[in-house]
């Protein structure tokens, strides 16, 4: 498990989107096989700024706007990857995966295996996840579990600019398909203010973060909170709120496939209490998986477990309804108090 380093304080602070774009730009400069394709990635720069400014430097051959046709262009990225290139395809919202899912889970994810590794698929599928801005059931899902459940894809979920950059470099250089899921609320876009936290100092030189290394974003003794994406910041807020009452350790998974089980076990062996916070649906997802691994590996050390998740209901539109279902800082505080009073 990695520890958050503070020595990067001299590096300039970047938004998460800027950090991602920096990594993509560096890879585009260094490797002719890298290119970007997706809806509104060129002139618009990505609806959530994930490709902001790339068109100006790299032109339309490298930064390709495509017709709205997810099956077509995600499948084309698979084909180009199998031909030895390194495409980065953007699925504008994770919610839209249904339109092109066959290409994602039957081709992108499985071709390496089905071919006996005769071919491999070195591509990145970037996609925006998450709610908090009342965009309702077709534009607010997180769906970490769906992608992590299907074998053959590595799944990355950054929570800070520094992580976003290192993980993007690793993703593009990886020889397997990587699903890179970024939370809209963390990107630092003008019309959707980010919470404190995702904007961090980012080293100027390129660096990679190994997949499968969770990050202990806060060290604590009493309760382990395992989470990812936006909810890393909500967990840290909860930790501040509970200071003096309960000492939280916050583990940011950073990648779901591979999953740093050891980081979770090491922490729960120390604290004995586990809270999993996940913006994805409650059942059959990340929270169940983490609890299962914790109980398989550290049952004797555990005294209590809680899950703070999105309930098994489509995400509603009206503000009081969405606030009710989206796990908030107060829900984390309450879960911690439930098991540590």
């Amino acid at each position, binding site marked *: 498990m990695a520890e958050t380093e503070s020595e990067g304080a001299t590096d300039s602070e970047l938004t998460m989107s800027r950090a991602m774009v920096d990594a993509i730009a560096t890879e585009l400069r260094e490797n002719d096989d890298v290119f970007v394709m997706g809806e509104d990635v060129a002139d618009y720069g990505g609806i959530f700024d994930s490709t902001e400014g790339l068109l100006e430097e790299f032109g339309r051959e490298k930064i390709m706007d495509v017709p709205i046709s997810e099956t077509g262009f995600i499948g084309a990225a698979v084909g180009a990857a199998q031909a030895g290139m390194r495409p980065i395809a953007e699925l504008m919202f994770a919610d839209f995966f249904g339109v092109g899912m066959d290409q994602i889970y039957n081709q992108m994810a499985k071709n390496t295996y089905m071919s006996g590794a005769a071919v491999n698929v070195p591509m990145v599928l970037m996609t925006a996840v998450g709610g908090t801005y009342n965009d309702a059931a077709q534009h607010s899902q997180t769906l970490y579990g769906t992608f992590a459940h299907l074998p053959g894809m590595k799944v990355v979920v950054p929570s800070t600019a520094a992580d976003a950059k290192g993980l993007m470099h690793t993703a593009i250089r990886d020889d397997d398909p990587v699903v890179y899921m970024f939370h809209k609320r963390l990107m630092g876009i003008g019309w959707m203010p980010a919470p404190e936290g995702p904007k961090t100092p980012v080293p100027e030189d390129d660096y990679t973060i190994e997949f499968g290394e969770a990050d202990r974003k806060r060290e604590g003794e009493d309760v382990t909170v395992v989470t990812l994406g936006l909810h890393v910041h909500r967990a840290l807020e909860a930790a501040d709120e509970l200071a003096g009452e309960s000492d939280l350790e916050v583990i940011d998974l950073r990648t779901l496939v591979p999953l740093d089980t050891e980081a979770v076990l090491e922490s729960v062996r120390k604290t004995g209490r586990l809270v999993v916070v996940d913006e994805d649906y409650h059942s059959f997802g990340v929270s169940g998986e983490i609890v299962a691994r914790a109980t398989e590996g550290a049952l004797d050390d*555990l005294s209590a477990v809680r899950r703070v998740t999105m309930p098994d209901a489509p995400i509603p539109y009206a503000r009081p309804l969405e606030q009710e279902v989206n796990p908030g800082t107060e829900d984390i505080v309450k879960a911690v108090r439930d098991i540590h009073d």
Partner: protein
Amino acid sequence: MYEWMVTARNYEERLQEEYLEGKQPAFDISAGPIPGELHLAAGQEAAAAGVCAHLRDADTVTAPHRPHHVAIAKGVDLKRMTAEIFGRQTGLSKGKGGHMHLFDPDVNFACSGIIAEGCPPAVGAALAAKKRGEDSVAVAYLGEGAISQGGFLESLNLASVHDLPVVFVIEDNDWAISMPKDRVTDVENGAQRAGGFDLPGRRVDQDDAVAVYEAADEAVGRARDGNGPTLLEVQVHRRMGHFMGDAQGYRPDTDEEQAKQRDSITRMETTLESAGIDESTIEELRDRSHDRVEEAIEWAKDQPEPEPDEAYEDVFADPPAGWTPAPESTTAEQTGGDD
């Protein structure tokens, strides 16, 4: 038709004002009385009015994420639609759907926020009508950016193979968010897609509601008479950004200006005047639509917000016994070690 068009325009202008409240000077999508994204259809009214004028309540319409003008022309309950957009309990979907997901079964209207995904359900409604021997028809609206999408192309084929009473209406506003039409397709227009499926394809080059009405008369009539589907394309204009808050940095100023000049509502007024309708009648229609819009907005704003617990209702029409969205049992304490 003119009244629907002017109601839609008024309505969206008022929604825009309400939407921007609390979001200025710095635009924050999650602030203000109307939550979420808002996609306005100003400039597209002719496509709604000209087609829906031929429809009855029993006919089905599916609209995309930019639905208000079509909903108004189809006769969706304006008050409850407005309450839905404001996220209120008495909204069409009890505050669960929002502006991209309006459902009004009283007039068989539905919409979806996923591009082209309203096409297959329209085919399904047409299939149901055919199986039941009813003469109702289905109309699927989509944008020109959606014409490359599998859901649309598969729907054309299915409707054609089974001679289903469905009319596909492409609203060509020239822009798919930041993508101009010439980068979406290499053919001149979307109506040409029909050729590949052996069904009639017709394009109305101007956003003239009367010309749309005439073209739709033939298409809807063909469907109602059991003669199968038609693909109809209407040139409309996007006067606004893709969504509220879209700075449109990708769009030439001249294009936006042109879109505003080619105003289907002004065109319709000219048509009415040349047909001998006097100014006071037009004024009266305008006033009536204005009053109706104000009444809907005032009513909607007075409606209560949903109670938080209502988020857990309506997941199923018939909830399985014992089902809860986040079972209490999973939060029960586990024991196995020292506390």
